[in-house]
Protein backbone atom coordinates (compact mmCIF):
# COMPACT_ATOMS: atom_id res chain seq x y z
CA UNK A 1 0.00 0.00 0.00
CA UNK A 2 3.02 2.29 0.46
CA UNK A 3 3.37 2.64 -3.28
CA UNK A 4 -0.25 3.51 -3.73
CA UNK A 5 -1.20 6.96 -4.94
CA UNK A 6 -3.65 8.95 -2.92
CA UNK A 7 -6.20 9.05 -5.72
CA UNK A 8 -5.91 5.32 -6.25
CA UNK A 9 -6.56 4.75 -2.58
CA UNK A 10 -9.59 7.04 -2.61
CA UNK A 11 -11.09 5.46 -5.71
CA UNK A 12 -10.51 1.98 -4.30
CA UNK A 13 -12.16 3.10 -1.07
CA UNK A 14 -15.12 4.43 -3.03
CA UNK A 15 -15.42 1.12 -4.83
CA UNK A 16 -15.38 -0.77 -1.55
CA UNK A 17 -18.14 1.45 -0.17
CA UNK A 18 -20.18 0.75 -3.28
CA UNK A 19 -19.61 -3.00 -3.06
CA UNK A 20 -20.47 -3.06 0.60
CA UNK A 21 -23.57 -0.98 0.02
CA UNK A 22 -24.69 -3.33 -2.73
CA UNK A 23 -24.26 -6.02 -0.12
CA UNK A 24 -24.13 -9.11 -2.30
CA UNK A 25 -21.02 -10.55 -0.75
CA UNK A 26 -20.49 -13.44 1.55
CA UNK A 27 -19.79 -12.49 5.13
CA UNK A 28 -16.14 -13.40 4.62
CA UNK A 29 -16.02 -11.26 1.49
CA UNK A 30 -17.59 -8.33 3.26
CA UNK A 31 -15.26 -8.59 6.20
CA UNK A 32 -12.30 -8.69 3.87
CA UNK A 33 -13.53 -5.59 2.04
CA UNK A 34 -14.26 -3.88 5.31
CA UNK A 35 -10.77 -4.57 6.58
CA UNK A 36 -9.24 -3.28 3.36
CA UNK A 37 -11.46 -0.21 3.51
CA UNK A 38 -10.38 0.65 7.02
CA UNK A 39 -6.74 0.26 6.02
CA UNK A 40 -7.26 2.55 3.01
CA UNK A 41 -9.03 5.08 5.17
CA UNK A 42 -6.07 5.18 7.57
CA UNK A 43 -3.67 5.41 4.65
CA UNK A 44 -5.58 8.38 3.20
CA UNK A 45 -5.87 10.22 6.48
CA UNK A 46 -2.17 9.62 7.01
CA UNK A 47 -1.38 11.06 3.60
CA UNK A 48 -3.45 14.13 4.37
CA UNK A 49 -1.35 14.78 7.46
CA UNK A 50 1.92 13.79 5.91
CA UNK A 51 3.23 16.92 4.20
CA UNK A 52 5.07 19.57 6.12
CA UNK A 53 4.53 23.22 5.45
CA UNK A 54 7.51 24.62 3.67
CA UNK A 55 7.81 27.64 1.42
CA UNK A 56 10.96 27.98 -0.64
CA UNK A 57 12.24 30.17 -3.42
CA UNK A 58 14.83 29.36 -6.02
CA UNK A 59 17.73 31.78 -5.90
CA UNK A 60 20.90 31.98 -7.93
CA UNK A 61 23.98 30.87 -6.04
CA UNK A 62 27.41 32.38 -6.65
CA UNK A 63 28.08 29.67 -9.20
CA UNK A 64 25.00 30.83 -11.02
CA UNK A 65 23.00 27.76 -10.15
CA UNK A 66 19.51 27.92 -8.77
CA UNK A 67 19.06 26.61 -5.25
CA UNK A 68 16.01 26.51 -3.00
CA UNK A 69 16.01 28.60 0.17
CA UNK A 70 13.26 29.60 2.57
CA UNK A 71 10.97 32.26 1.18
CA UNK A 72 10.03 35.42 2.98
CA UNK A 73 7.74 37.84 1.20
CA UNK A 74 8.89 40.94 3.14
CA UNK A 75 12.52 40.15 2.42
CA UNK A 76 11.80 39.84 -1.27
CA UNK A 77 9.97 43.14 -1.38
CA UNK A 78 12.76 44.83 0.57
CA UNK A 79 15.34 43.44 -1.82
CA UNK A 80 13.37 44.72 -4.76
CA UNK A 81 13.09 48.21 -3.28
CA UNK A 82 16.82 48.32 -2.58
CA UNK A 83 17.56 47.31 -6.14
CA UNK A 84 15.42 49.98 -7.69
Amino acid at each position, binding site marked *: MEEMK*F*EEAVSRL*EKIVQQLEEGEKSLEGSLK*LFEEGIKLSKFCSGK*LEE*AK*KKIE*ILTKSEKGELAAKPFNLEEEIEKKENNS
Partner: protein
Amino acid sequence: MEEPRKIYKVSEINKIAKNLLEEKFPEIWLEGEISNFTLHSSGHLYFSLKDEDAQINAIMYKWQAGQLEFVPENGMKVIAQGKISVFVKGGRYQIIVYGLKPIGIGALQQAFEQLKRKLEREGLFDKARKRPIPMLPQKIGIVTSPTGAAIRDILNIIERRFANVHILIHPVRVQGDRAAGEIAEAIAYVNERFPSLDVLIVGRGGGSLEDLWSFNREIVARAIYNSRIPVISAVGHEVDYTIADFVADLRAPTPSAAAELVVTNKIELEKKILLLTSKIKLSMKHELDELTSQYRRLVDSRIFLHPEELYSQFQQEIDYYLEKITSKCAHFLDFQKERLNSIAGKLNVLSPLNILARGYSITYKLPENEILKSISQVTMKDKVKIKLHRGEIICTVEETDIPVKKESEKRGVKGE
Protein backbone atom coordinates in the same frame (compact mmCIF):
# COMPACT_ATOMS: atom_id res chain seq x y z
CA MET B 1 43.24 77.29 -56.56
CA GLU B 2 40.15 75.52 -57.24
CA GLU B 3 39.61 72.46 -55.25
CA PRO B 4 38.78 69.47 -57.36
CA ARG B 5 35.14 68.56 -56.92
CA LYS B 6 34.49 65.16 -55.54
CA ILE B 7 32.14 63.39 -57.86
CA TYR B 8 30.36 60.41 -56.41
CA LYS B 9 28.97 57.52 -58.24
CA VAL B 10 25.36 56.67 -57.46
CA SER B 11 26.19 53.32 -55.98
CA GLU B 12 28.93 54.94 -53.98
CA ILE B 13 26.70 57.56 -52.42
CA ASN B 14 24.03 54.99 -51.70
CA LYS B 15 26.59 52.81 -49.93
CA ILE B 16 27.84 55.75 -47.90
CA ALA B 17 24.32 56.64 -46.96
CA LYS B 18 23.73 53.01 -46.01
CA ASN B 19 26.81 52.92 -43.81
CA LEU B 20 26.01 56.22 -42.16
CA LEU B 21 22.47 55.23 -41.39
CA GLU B 22 23.37 51.77 -40.17
CA GLU B 23 26.05 53.20 -37.93
CA LYS B 24 23.71 55.79 -36.55
CA PHE B 25 20.68 53.57 -36.08
CA PRO B 26 21.93 49.97 -35.56
CA GLU B 27 18.92 49.13 -33.40
CA ILE B 28 15.83 51.21 -32.96
CA TRP B 29 12.25 50.74 -31.93
CA LEU B 30 9.85 52.32 -34.27
CA GLU B 31 6.16 52.67 -33.68
CA GLY B 32 3.75 52.84 -36.57
CA GLU B 33 0.82 51.41 -38.40
CA ILE B 34 1.32 48.73 -41.02
CA SER B 35 0.26 49.50 -44.60
CA ASN B 36 0.99 48.13 -48.06
CA PHE B 37 1.66 44.76 -46.50
CA THR B 38 2.96 42.10 -48.93
CA LEU B 39 4.07 38.61 -48.22
CA HIS B 40 6.49 37.96 -51.06
CA SER B 41 6.84 34.50 -52.57
CA SER B 42 10.43 34.53 -51.27
CA GLY B 43 8.99 34.55 -47.75
CA HIS B 44 10.18 38.07 -46.99
CA LEU B 45 7.64 40.61 -45.75
CA TYR B 46 7.42 44.02 -47.39
CA PHE B 47 5.35 46.77 -45.86
CA SER B 48 5.30 50.40 -44.80
CA LEU B 49 5.10 51.85 -41.35
CA LYS B 50 3.29 55.11 -41.11
CA ASP B 51 1.97 57.69 -38.73
CA GLU B 52 -0.33 60.62 -39.42
CA ASP B 53 2.26 62.51 -41.45
CA ALA B 54 4.85 60.17 -42.86
CA GLN B 55 5.81 56.68 -43.82
CA ILE B 56 8.89 54.51 -44.18
CA ASN B 57 9.51 51.33 -46.14
CA ALA B 58 10.09 48.21 -44.13
CA ILE B 59 11.35 44.76 -44.93
CA MET B 60 11.40 41.73 -42.70
CA TYR B 61 13.44 38.78 -43.93
CA LYS B 62 11.81 35.41 -43.87
CA TRP B 63 14.11 33.94 -41.19
CA GLN B 64 12.87 36.59 -38.80
CA ALA B 65 9.35 36.66 -40.16
CA GLY B 66 9.16 32.96 -39.29
CA GLN B 67 9.58 33.87 -35.61
CA LEU B 68 6.54 36.11 -35.59
CA GLU B 69 3.72 35.00 -33.35
CA PHE B 70 1.13 36.80 -35.45
CA VAL B 71 0.55 37.65 -39.06
CA PRO B 72 0.93 41.39 -39.61
CA GLU B 73 -2.06 43.01 -41.25
CA ASN B 74 -2.67 46.42 -42.73
CA GLY B 75 -3.88 48.86 -40.10
CA MET B 76 -2.22 47.01 -37.25
CA LYS B 77 -0.32 49.18 -34.80
CA VAL B 78 3.07 47.75 -34.02
CA ILE B 79 6.43 48.46 -32.55
CA ALA B 80 9.12 47.35 -34.93
CA GLN B 81 12.61 46.56 -33.78
CA GLY B 82 15.31 46.89 -36.45
CA LYS B 83 18.02 48.92 -38.08
CA ILE B 84 17.77 51.73 -40.56
CA SER B 85 19.42 50.95 -43.86
CA VAL B 86 19.44 51.75 -47.54
CA PHE B 87 18.51 49.52 -50.43
CA VAL B 88 21.53 50.43 -52.54
CA LYS B 89 20.15 49.45 -55.92
CA GLY B 90 16.90 51.33 -55.50
CA GLY B 91 18.31 54.15 -53.45
CA ARG B 92 15.47 53.72 -51.04
CA TYR B 93 16.04 54.04 -47.38
CA GLN B 94 14.19 51.59 -45.20
CA ILE B 95 14.00 49.82 -41.90
CA ILE B 96 15.11 46.20 -41.76
CA VAL B 97 12.84 44.72 -39.15
CA TYR B 98 14.01 41.98 -36.73
CA GLY B 99 10.97 41.86 -34.52
CA LEU B 100 7.42 43.10 -34.44
CA LYS B 101 5.18 43.54 -31.47
CA PRO B 102 1.53 44.45 -31.76
CA ILE B 103 0.41 47.36 -29.60
CA GLY B 104 -2.96 48.74 -28.66
CA ILE B 105 -6.01 46.71 -27.76
CA GLY B 106 -7.01 46.09 -31.37
CA ALA B 107 -3.67 44.75 -32.49
CA LEU B 108 -3.12 42.70 -29.37
CA GLN B 109 -6.58 41.24 -29.67
CA GLN B 110 -5.90 40.36 -33.28
CA ALA B 111 -2.59 38.75 -32.44
CA PHE B 112 -4.26 36.90 -29.60
CA GLU B 113 -6.96 35.49 -31.87
CA GLN B 114 -4.39 34.53 -34.48
CA LEU B 115 -2.19 32.65 -32.04
CA LYS B 116 -5.19 31.04 -30.43
CA ARG B 117 -6.41 29.72 -33.76
CA LYS B 118 -2.96 28.49 -34.69
CA LEU B 119 -2.31 26.61 -31.44
CA GLU B 120 -5.82 25.23 -31.44
CA ARG B 121 -5.24 23.78 -34.89
CA GLU B 122 -2.02 22.25 -33.64
CA GLY B 123 -3.91 20.55 -30.83
CA LEU B 124 -2.32 22.39 -27.91
CA PHE B 125 -5.73 22.98 -26.35
CA ASP B 126 -7.04 19.46 -26.81
CA LYS B 127 -9.17 18.37 -23.90
CA ALA B 128 -7.88 14.84 -24.27
CA ARG B 129 -4.32 15.80 -23.41
CA LYS B 130 -5.24 17.69 -20.25
CA ARG B 131 -3.87 15.84 -17.26
CA PRO B 132 -5.82 15.53 -14.06
CA ILE B 133 -4.64 17.76 -11.23
CA PRO B 134 -3.68 15.44 -8.36
CA MET B 135 -6.26 15.31 -5.62
CA LEU B 136 -3.74 15.99 -2.95
CA PRO B 137 -0.84 18.01 -4.32
CA GLN B 138 1.79 18.29 -1.65
CA LYS B 139 4.69 19.76 -3.56
CA ILE B 140 3.54 22.77 -5.47
CA GLY B 141 5.73 24.75 -7.82
CA ILE B 142 4.86 28.36 -8.51
CA VAL B 143 6.27 30.30 -11.43
CA THR B 144 5.54 33.96 -10.77
CA SER B 145 7.00 37.18 -9.53
CA PRO B 146 8.29 36.82 -5.96
CA THR B 147 6.98 40.27 -5.13
CA GLY B 148 3.74 40.32 -7.06
CA ALA B 149 0.15 40.13 -5.97
CA ALA B 150 -0.13 36.52 -7.10
CA ILE B 151 2.37 35.09 -4.63
CA ARG B 152 0.94 37.22 -1.84
CA ASP B 153 -2.59 35.99 -2.55
CA ILE B 154 -1.51 32.37 -2.79
CA LEU B 155 0.46 32.49 0.48
CA ASN B 156 -2.45 34.26 2.19
CA ILE B 157 -4.81 31.46 1.30
CA ILE B 158 -2.38 28.82 2.42
CA GLU B 159 -1.72 30.66 5.69
CA ARG B 160 -5.41 31.10 6.38
CA ARG B 161 -6.26 27.48 5.79
CA PHE B 162 -3.40 25.98 7.79
CA ALA B 163 -2.42 24.04 4.73
CA ASN B 164 0.68 21.95 5.15
CA VAL B 165 2.04 22.01 1.65
CA HIS B 166 5.53 22.38 0.30
CA ILE B 167 5.80 25.36 -2.01
CA LEU B 168 8.68 26.03 -4.34
CA ILE B 169 8.73 29.42 -6.02
CA HIS B 170 10.62 29.98 -9.22
CA PRO B 171 10.89 33.77 -9.41
CA VAL B 172 10.37 35.31 -12.83
CA ARG B 173 9.42 38.63 -14.29
CA VAL B 174 5.79 38.59 -15.30
CA GLN B 175 5.72 41.64 -17.54
CA GLY B 176 8.00 43.31 -19.99
CA ASP B 177 9.83 42.00 -23.01
CA ARG B 178 11.83 39.38 -21.20
CA ALA B 179 9.02 38.02 -19.08
CA ALA B 180 7.76 35.44 -21.59
CA GLY B 181 11.23 33.96 -22.06
CA GLU B 182 11.81 33.76 -18.30
CA ILE B 183 8.44 32.15 -17.67
CA ALA B 184 9.00 29.56 -20.40
CA GLU B 185 12.50 28.82 -19.14
CA ALA B 186 11.32 28.51 -15.55
CA ILE B 187 8.63 26.00 -16.54
CA ALA B 188 11.21 23.90 -18.38
CA TYR B 189 13.69 24.26 -15.52
CA VAL B 190 11.43 23.05 -12.71
CA ASN B 191 10.29 20.17 -14.91
CA GLU B 192 13.87 19.11 -15.26
CA ARG B 193 15.15 19.80 -11.76
CA PHE B 194 12.05 19.19 -9.66
CA PRO B 195 10.09 16.49 -11.47
CA SER B 196 8.58 15.43 -8.15
CA LEU B 197 6.41 18.55 -8.04
CA ASP B 198 2.77 17.49 -8.00
CA VAL B 199 1.49 20.56 -9.74
CA LEU B 200 2.78 23.81 -11.16
CA ILE B 201 0.96 27.13 -10.81
CA VAL B 202 1.94 29.65 -13.48
CA GLY B 203 0.54 33.11 -13.25
CA ARG B 204 0.43 36.67 -12.05
CA GLY B 205 -1.98 39.15 -10.58
CA GLY B 206 -4.29 41.40 -12.52
CA GLY B 207 -3.18 44.07 -14.94
CA SER B 208 -3.80 45.58 -18.32
CA LEU B 209 -3.91 43.50 -21.47
CA GLU B 210 -0.32 44.57 -22.14
CA ASP B 211 0.70 43.60 -18.60
CA LEU B 212 -0.70 40.13 -19.07
CA TRP B 213 0.70 39.83 -22.56
CA SER B 214 3.55 37.47 -21.66
CA PHE B 215 0.96 34.83 -20.95
CA ASN B 216 -0.32 35.21 -24.49
CA ARG B 217 3.05 34.44 -25.99
CA GLU B 218 3.63 31.32 -27.99
CA ILE B 219 6.84 30.49 -26.14
CA VAL B 220 4.93 30.34 -22.83
CA ALA B 221 2.14 28.33 -24.40
CA ARG B 222 4.61 25.76 -25.70
CA ALA B 223 6.45 25.55 -22.39
CA ILE B 224 3.16 24.80 -20.63
CA TYR B 225 2.28 22.27 -23.30
CA ASN B 226 5.64 20.54 -22.85
CA SER B 227 5.49 20.50 -19.06
CA ARG B 228 5.33 17.00 -17.61
CA ILE B 229 4.08 18.46 -14.34
CA PRO B 230 0.39 19.33 -14.61
CA VAL B 231 -0.02 23.09 -14.92
CA ILE B 232 -2.65 25.34 -13.38
CA SER B 233 -2.74 28.74 -15.04
CA ALA B 234 -3.68 31.64 -12.80
CA VAL B 235 -3.45 34.88 -14.70
CA GLY B 236 -5.06 38.16 -13.73
CA HIS B 237 -8.70 38.34 -12.83
CA GLU B 238 -11.66 36.15 -13.53
CA VAL B 239 -12.45 37.91 -16.82
CA ASP B 240 -8.94 37.62 -18.23
CA TYR B 241 -8.42 34.75 -20.57
CA THR B 242 -4.91 34.16 -21.86
CA ILE B 243 -3.42 31.65 -24.26
CA ALA B 244 -1.74 30.10 -21.20
CA ASP B 245 -5.20 29.39 -19.80
CA PHE B 246 -6.17 27.44 -22.90
CA VAL B 247 -3.04 25.29 -22.87
CA ALA B 248 -2.90 24.70 -19.11
CA ASP B 249 -4.33 21.50 -17.68
CA LEU B 250 -6.56 23.63 -15.51
CA ARG B 251 -7.40 27.32 -15.54
CA ALA B 252 -7.81 29.00 -12.19
CA PRO B 253 -9.66 32.30 -12.57
CA THR B 254 -7.21 34.02 -10.20
CA PRO B 255 -4.05 33.12 -8.26
CA SER B 256 -6.13 32.96 -5.06
CA ALA B 257 -8.47 30.55 -6.76
CA ALA B 258 -5.49 28.41 -7.74
CA ALA B 259 -4.39 28.27 -4.11
CA GLU B 260 -7.92 27.46 -3.02
CA LEU B 261 -8.13 24.68 -5.56
CA VAL B 262 -5.02 23.13 -4.14
CA VAL B 263 -5.91 23.63 -0.50
CA THR B 264 -9.68 23.32 -0.44
CA ASN B 265 -9.25 19.99 -2.04
CA LYS B 266 -7.53 18.86 1.09
CA ILE B 267 -10.33 19.86 3.41
CA GLU B 268 -12.85 18.32 1.03
CA LEU B 269 -10.78 15.19 0.91
CA GLU B 270 -10.64 14.94 4.67
CA LYS B 271 -14.44 15.16 4.71
CA LYS B 272 -14.70 12.66 1.92
CA ILE B 273 -12.46 10.11 3.62
CA LEU B 274 -14.44 10.50 6.82
CA LEU B 275 -17.69 10.03 4.93
CA LEU B 276 -16.43 6.98 3.06
CA THR B 277 -15.11 5.49 6.27
CA SER B 278 -18.37 5.97 8.11
CA LYS B 279 -20.15 4.52 5.09
CA ILE B 280 -18.20 1.30 5.12
CA LYS B 281 -18.67 1.05 8.88
CA LEU B 282 -22.38 1.60 8.46
CA SER B 283 -22.81 -0.93 5.67
CA MET B 284 -20.77 -3.45 7.59
CA LYS B 285 -22.97 -2.89 10.63
CA HIS B 286 -26.08 -3.23 8.48
CA GLU B 287 -24.82 -6.42 7.05
CA LEU B 288 -23.95 -7.87 10.43
CA ASP B 289 -27.33 -6.78 11.83
CA GLU B 290 -29.03 -8.35 8.86
CA LEU B 291 -27.11 -11.59 9.30
CA THR B 292 -27.75 -11.59 13.04
CA SER B 293 -31.46 -11.12 12.62
CA GLN B 294 -31.47 -13.74 9.90
CA TYR B 295 -29.74 -16.07 12.30
CA ARG B 296 -32.25 -15.15 15.04
CA ARG B 297 -35.12 -15.82 12.70
CA LEU B 298 -33.74 -19.22 11.90
CA VAL B 299 -32.99 -20.16 15.47
CA ASP B 300 -36.44 -19.00 16.52
CA SER B 301 -38.16 -20.81 13.70
CA ARG B 302 -40.80 -23.49 14.55
CA ILE B 303 -38.60 -26.27 13.40
CA PHE B 304 -35.90 -25.47 15.92
CA LEU B 305 -38.40 -24.82 18.66
CA HIS B 306 -40.36 -28.03 17.89
CA PRO B 307 -37.94 -30.39 16.27
CA GLU B 308 -40.26 -33.33 16.94
CA GLU B 309 -42.49 -31.93 14.22
CA LEU B 310 -39.85 -33.01 11.84
CA TYR B 311 -40.67 -36.70 12.46
CA SER B 312 -44.07 -36.71 14.17
CA GLN B 313 -45.67 -36.88 10.79
CA PHE B 314 -43.71 -39.97 9.96
CA GLN B 315 -44.34 -41.42 13.34
CA GLN B 316 -48.02 -41.07 12.72
CA GLU B 317 -47.71 -42.75 9.41
CA ILE B 318 -45.79 -45.59 10.90
CA ASP B 319 -48.41 -45.98 13.57
CA TYR B 320 -51.08 -46.06 10.97
CA TYR B 321 -49.36 -48.75 8.95
CA LEU B 322 -48.47 -50.71 12.02
CA GLU B 323 -52.06 -50.73 13.08
CA LYS B 324 -53.12 -51.73 9.64
CA ILE B 325 -50.67 -54.58 9.57
CA THR B 326 -51.68 -55.72 13.02
CA SER B 327 -55.31 -55.83 12.16
CA LYS B 328 -54.58 -57.54 8.88
CA CYS B 329 -52.57 -60.17 10.72
CA ALA B 330 -55.29 -60.64 13.30
CA HIS B 331 -57.82 -61.20 10.59
CA PHE B 332 -55.64 -63.67 8.93
CA LEU B 333 -55.03 -65.51 12.16
CA ASP B 334 -58.72 -65.59 12.96
CA PHE B 335 -59.45 -66.92 9.57
CA GLN B 336 -56.82 -69.61 9.86
CA LYS B 337 -58.02 -70.51 13.29
CA GLU B 338 -61.53 -70.94 12.04
CA ARG B 339 -60.33 -73.01 9.20
CA LEU B 340 -58.30 -75.12 11.55
CA ASN B 341 -61.27 -75.52 13.80
CA SER B 342 -63.44 -76.72 11.03
CA ILE B 343 -60.79 -79.15 9.87
CA ALA B 344 -60.25 -80.28 13.41
CA GLY B 345 -63.96 -80.77 13.74
CA LYS B 346 -64.02 -82.92 10.69
CA LEU B 347 -61.02 -84.78 11.93
CA ASN B 348 -62.66 -85.33 15.22
CA VAL B 349 -65.59 -86.96 13.60
CA LEU B 350 -63.27 -89.30 11.84
CA SER B 351 -61.01 -89.99 14.81
CA PRO B 352 -61.00 -93.59 16.09
CA LEU B 353 -60.96 -92.11 19.50
CA ASN B 354 -64.44 -90.86 18.86
CA ILE B 355 -65.48 -94.43 18.17
CA LEU B 356 -63.97 -95.35 21.52
CA ALA B 357 -66.24 -92.74 23.09
CA ARG B 358 -69.15 -94.63 21.80
CA GLY B 359 -68.00 -97.70 23.77
CA TYR B 360 -65.70 -99.43 21.34
CA SER B 361 -62.18 -100.38 22.37
CA ILE B 362 -58.96 -101.32 20.75
CA THR B 363 -56.88 -104.27 21.86
CA TYR B 364 -53.16 -104.39 21.46
CA LYS B 365 -50.97 -107.37 21.84
CA LEU B 366 -48.14 -106.71 24.25
CA PRO B 367 -45.36 -106.11 24.21
CA GLU B 368 -45.50 -105.51 20.43
CA ASN B 369 -48.39 -103.05 20.82
CA GLU B 370 -49.92 -104.67 17.78
CA ILE B 371 -53.58 -104.09 17.16
CA LEU B 372 -55.45 -107.34 17.42
CA LYS B 373 -57.80 -108.12 14.64
CA SER B 374 -57.89 -111.96 14.77
CA ILE B 375 -57.77 -114.58 17.42
CA SER B 376 -54.97 -116.18 15.62
CA GLN B 377 -52.74 -113.38 16.75
CA VAL B 378 -52.80 -114.49 20.40
CA THR B 379 -52.27 -117.56 22.47
CA MET B 380 -53.18 -118.34 25.99
CA LYS B 381 -51.66 -116.24 28.73
CA ASP B 382 -50.56 -113.52 26.37
CA LYS B 383 -50.72 -110.03 27.76
CA VAL B 384 -52.97 -107.66 25.93
CA LYS B 385 -53.84 -103.99 26.40
CA ILE B 386 -57.31 -102.72 25.86
CA LYS B 387 -57.59 -99.08 25.04
CA LEU B 388 -60.84 -97.50 26.09
CA HIS B 389 -62.32 -94.09 25.53
CA ARG B 390 -60.80 -93.18 28.89
CA GLY B 391 -57.90 -95.27 30.13
CA GLU B 392 -56.48 -98.68 29.40
CA ILE B 393 -56.74 -102.11 30.81
CA ILE B 394 -53.97 -104.68 30.83
CA CYS B 395 -55.40 -108.23 30.58
CA THR B 396 -54.23 -111.82 30.26
CA VAL B 397 -55.75 -114.10 27.65
CA GLU B 398 -57.61 -116.79 29.52
CA GLU B 399 -59.60 -118.28 26.77
CA THR B 400 -59.91 -118.00 23.02
CA ASP B 401 -62.87 -118.71 20.93
CA ILE B 402 -63.34 -118.93 17.27
CA PRO B 403 -66.08 -116.50 16.53
CA VAL B 404 -69.10 -118.27 15.19
CA LYS B 405 -72.07 -117.01 17.06
CA LYS B 406 -72.04 -113.86 19.00
CA GLU B 407 -69.30 -111.91 17.56
CA SER B 408 -69.59 -109.09 19.95
CA GLU B 409 -69.04 -111.34 22.93
CA LYS B 410 -66.11 -113.19 21.37
CA ARG B 411 -64.18 -110.22 20.05
CA GLY B 412 -62.86 -109.05 23.34
CA VAL B 413 -63.60 -108.31 26.87
CA LYS B 414 -65.47 -105.23 27.71
CA GLY B 415 -64.30 -103.27 30.65
CA GLU B 416 -64.37 -99.82 31.96
